[in-house]
């Protein structure tokens, strides 16, 4: 029963940031004093990465990933019976759900999944499916839940890396780990692992807006499992950006592997 004595607010609300010119005025400059906006020196520099596996005790497997301020946590459950099974299938299923925490962005996110989150969920599924041995759990399903705790850019790539680590932690059989990297194309520069402010750089008028590309990569197999791009650019620039993402993925691979080894060692010591 709603409180009738209280004046109800308007049905639709807008974020105050939309009316605040300081926040609206995005810069068009990617570099100031030869440094990127968050102090990184080069275009190809990745932010400091922190990874941890096995932090949620109830889940079969879990992982936490941090790209400086971007924080993502992932939990994996299953394999379990498919709830609403339609056809018999020798292949297992993965279900992915990406959710931004209500406090993760500048604007408050709703509790229900919105269009962008659904899109990210499909992209995550696309990235993971080629890496997982689906035939190892026929008739069953694995659930992957990703929550973005703080979004400071490159949330999708953080989610992919984190989810593949969590799957490995859960002991789901995989061909390889999936490591992901995002690059922002802005004018002539290709910024690896963009922060939120770099993702929202303003386009210089008369120039192509560039855009953003995310690459999911399986380094040992040398296979691309996800590639998603939107923007407007020439093919050469796009290939250059994907190449740079690929190089970065190779570097990140070592970190992910080390984390996995560490978590296995820890588990051995505990038992």
């Amino acid at each position, binding site marked *: 029963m709603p409180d009738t004595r209280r004046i109800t607010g308007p049905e639709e609300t807008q974020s105050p940031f939309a009316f605040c010119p300081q926040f609206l005025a995005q810069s068009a400059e990617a570099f100031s004093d030869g440094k990127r906006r968050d102090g990184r020196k080069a275009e190809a520099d990745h932010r400091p990465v922190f990874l941890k596996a096995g932090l949620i005790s109830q889940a079969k497997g879990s992982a936490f990933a941090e790209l400086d301020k971007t924080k993502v946590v992932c939990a994996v459950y299953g394999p379990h019976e498919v709830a609403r099974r339609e056809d018999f299938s020798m292949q297992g299923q993965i279900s992915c759900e990406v959710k931004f925490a209500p406090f993760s962005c500048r604007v408050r996110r709703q509790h229900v999944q919105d269009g962008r989150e659904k899109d990210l969920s499909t992209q995550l599924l696309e990235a993971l499916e080629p890496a997982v041995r689906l035939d190892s759990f026929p008739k069953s399903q694995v659930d992957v839940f990703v929550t973005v705790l703080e979004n400071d850019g490159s949330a999708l790539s953080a989610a992919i890396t984190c989810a593949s680590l969590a799957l490995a932690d859960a002991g789901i059989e995989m061909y390889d780990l999936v490591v992901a990297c995002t690059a922002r194309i802005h004018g002539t520069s290709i910024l690896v692992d963009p922060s939120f402010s770099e993702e929202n750089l303003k386009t210089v008028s008369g120039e192509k*807006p560039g855009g953003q590309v995310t690459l999911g990569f399986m380094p040992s197999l040398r296979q*691309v499992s996800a590639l998603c791009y939107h923007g407007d650019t020439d093919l050469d620039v796009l290939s250059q950006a994907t190449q740079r993402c690929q190089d970065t993925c190779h570097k990140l691979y070592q970190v992910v592997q080390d984390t996995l080894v560490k978590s296995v060692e820890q588990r051995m010591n505990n038992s």
Partner: protein
Amino acid sequence: MVDVNLSEAEKTFIVHGIQDNFREDGRSNEEYRQMDLETGLMSNTSGSARLRLANTEILVGVKAELEEPKPEKPDVGRLEFFVDCSANAAPEFEGRGGEELATEMMNLLYRAYSASTVLDVSSLCLQSGKLCWVLYVDVLLLECGGNLFDAASIAVKAALFNTKIPSVKVRQEEGEETELEVSDDPYDVRRLDVSAAPTVLTLSKIGHNHIVDASQKEEACCLARLMMAVTASGSVTATVKEGRGSLDPDSITEMMQVGKRVGKAVNEKLLETLKEEEQKGLKRKTVGFLR
């Protein structure tokens, strides 16, 4: 997606054909199927197009409506995409069954049209922060015969080309409500410039080769595909990899090259056809589904 059940032998047949650059319907790997396109056939839309690509049938309607711009982007109008997979196409789409495919198509269209250079949305704004045109682009999938994404994007571009927005003048006097003045002349309309709008090109990896415009049977053999939105000038506005398989980085580069080349050609041909149809003017008789 509508399922086609193929036996292993049938799949092998298709894969071997593609290896030899000779597909089951006689095409080469980079060849499109016959396309039928008609625009302006729905009288209560601002623009419409119907595309038949072999057995794939798509109907697109564009409706222009006056609305308030989004507060974070007060100076631009916008495009809103909506895809409906009709149960006519496949019984599986009944009720909410087609929603998954519809969302996927919708997301790709949003992605392809996300860049500001693709379509001049700022010209759709009539009064900053108060009034702008919103173009509702509604895609209706009526029959599935493979390569739905390409077909939908081509039909969308054609419908946008066909779109006629009534010319409206905004008058505002001191301290008074804004007044809209709509032109009395039905031929006094604004058209959209779609020369930079993209169409989607799907490259399906089958065996060690990749093909464009896969039929339904070929799609059943395909493990991974790369969808890219290409404009007439050859720039790329979106790419998405789809499917359970993964791709080699080298083959991605190769696929993108092919995609760019074929995509450019499709765009050029499309604009040419649309202009040709336009020149026939009022003498052209719309046939719609009666043919």
